[in-house]
């Protein structure tokens, strides 16, 4: 019984990690209607920034702030230099998708060039204590990840439904022309979205970097699974995407009851494939445009 409970807890941890990834990705998708796969690489970049800054002789919180700022700069640079020119010439969503894959490969390769291909860690200023409860082992970092994922779910729901920015974002997502006539500046709002998305990426990168160590390809595997989770939950609903990511992490970890653990990723992709074909709006999402 405790094995099942431990698998379930591991599933919640994995799901929370994917939820951190899916939150920024689906926020950007909701506002700009583009699949920002390079979000995974931005998360990896944030983890490497955190590695560099925490190795410097500066206070730990200050290193985290530096990470946050540099990640925001990186995220907005991708928006400015890659996506904005494509939006200006009204490129199709498939072109933007391919551009985001290219941006992701570029960033991954840049990480190897600057930081090397070996595995790195983020140094914590305190010990990562593990807690044992009824035979289940969980570390304080893992508890933090779960807590942050839950808080994000609430904050994103509040942001999208209750704030002016969220309303403007939904208006822009709904109808760009009408949004413009009522005084919403799409480019400005897109920049704000990318900045919020980058903050989410920085939080994800720091926490995942502490939990799983850093390697250059981490961004790719994270975004693919985070994206699969977002599709399962519903791409057009930010809380839905976060919830879907949690469920996917749970499904992957409970799935290894029946399948070898190497098939964790295959479970995620198979679910992605099935949902894209038969329920593209996801579990919670609204009906999407004609697919």
């Amino acid at each position: 019984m405790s094995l099942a409970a431990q698998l379930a807890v591991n599933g919640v941890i994995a799901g929370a990690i994917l939820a951190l990834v899916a939150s920024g990705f689906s926020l950007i998708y909701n506002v700009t209607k583009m699949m920002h796969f390079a979000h995974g690489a931005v998360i990896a970049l944030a983890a490497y920034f955190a590695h560099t800054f925490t190795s410097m002789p500066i206070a730990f919180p200050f290193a985290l702030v530096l990470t946050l700022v540099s990640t925001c700069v990186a995220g907005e640079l991708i928006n400015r230099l890659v996506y904005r020119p494509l939006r200006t010439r009204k490129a199709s969503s498939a072109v933007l998708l391919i551009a985001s894959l290219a941006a992701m490969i570029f960033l991954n390769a840049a990480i190897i060039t600057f930081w090397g291909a070996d595995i790195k860690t983020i140094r914590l200023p305190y010990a990562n204590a593990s807690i044992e409860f009824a035979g289940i082992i969980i570390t304080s970092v893992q508890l933090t990840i779960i807590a942050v994922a839950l808080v994000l779910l609430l904050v994103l729901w509040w942001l999208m439904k209750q704030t002016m920015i969220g309303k403007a974002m939904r208006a822009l997502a709904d109808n760009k022309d009408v949004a413009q006539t009522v005084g919403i500046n799409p480019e400005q709002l897109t920049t704000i979205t990318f900045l919020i998305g980058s903050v989410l990426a920085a939080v994800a990168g720091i926490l995942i970097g502490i939990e799983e160590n850093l390697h250059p390809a981490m961004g790719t595997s994270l975004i693919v699974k985070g994206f699969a989770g977002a599709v399962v939950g519903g791409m057009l609903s930010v809380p839905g995407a976060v919830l879907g990511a949690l469920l996917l992490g749970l499904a992957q970890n409970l799935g290894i009851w029946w399948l070898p653990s190497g098939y964790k990723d295959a479970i995620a992709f198979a679910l992605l494939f099935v949902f894209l074909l038969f329920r593209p709006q996801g579990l919670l999402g609204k009906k999407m445009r004609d697919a």
Partner: protein
Amino acid sequence: MAFINYLIHLAILVCIYGMLTVSLNLAVGFTGLINLGHIAFFGIGAYTSALLALNGYPLWAAILGAALIAALAGIILAFPTTRLKGDYLALATLGFTFIVGSIARNWTSLTRGPLGLPGIPKYAASNQTLLWIAAGTLLAFSITIYCITKTRFGKTLQAVRDDELAAAMLGKNTFVHKVAAMGISAFFAGIAGSFFAHYISFIDPSIFGLGDLVLLLSMLIVGGLASVPGSFIGTAIILLIPEPLRFIGFPSALIGPMREMLFALILLLILIYRPKGIFGRVDLQ
């Protein structure tokens, strides 16, 4: 002499990737199917051919097996996905690439997983002979695909790309045409995969990587959609431009990632400034 061998090596790679790009152009450029699963067909061909050859089957059987299994995979993928459009098709086919890669990593009793398959026999003893075979095959593929696009079938594919509804209204079975285009495209990709496996003589699941997929897309888009010579030129440009990096004196560990940065950058620049590519006649929809 060493330099000549290096040039022959590059020329063989250009031929193999040329086959892959020109076959992808049939699906993406001529039929308008944004297929990100092509690298999976390439890998399926490579694995099929390698496994057949390593288990004692003759080379011709290995090549034919690679082509047929890849074509079958293409048809199977086309059945559920061709009703999707644009980025949805791209995502579903990308998911297919991930699934196949995941299987190659985990079906260790067949593929040896991440250890890969070493010692795949070569087609020919000397690379010079191999270059002639590869160049001949590339030429044959290019002519075949060029001819296909001039037939009634090929014209219908282009009609499906430009206006599927109109093609259907004229009584064309667009579904069958799209499935056939994917199957033919995958058939050629499987042969390219076989060439690759037998030339490098080692394959592992990294063949299904996103890096190679973006490399392939760069070749296709830089050369231009719906242009057979464009695919060849695009392949040559993307493969050859990073090569001088080797002679500038960068540490060898950096050459791989710098090469990836360079071709990702070229793809981005082309997408932003010249979306039709060099010889392209249609825009990516």
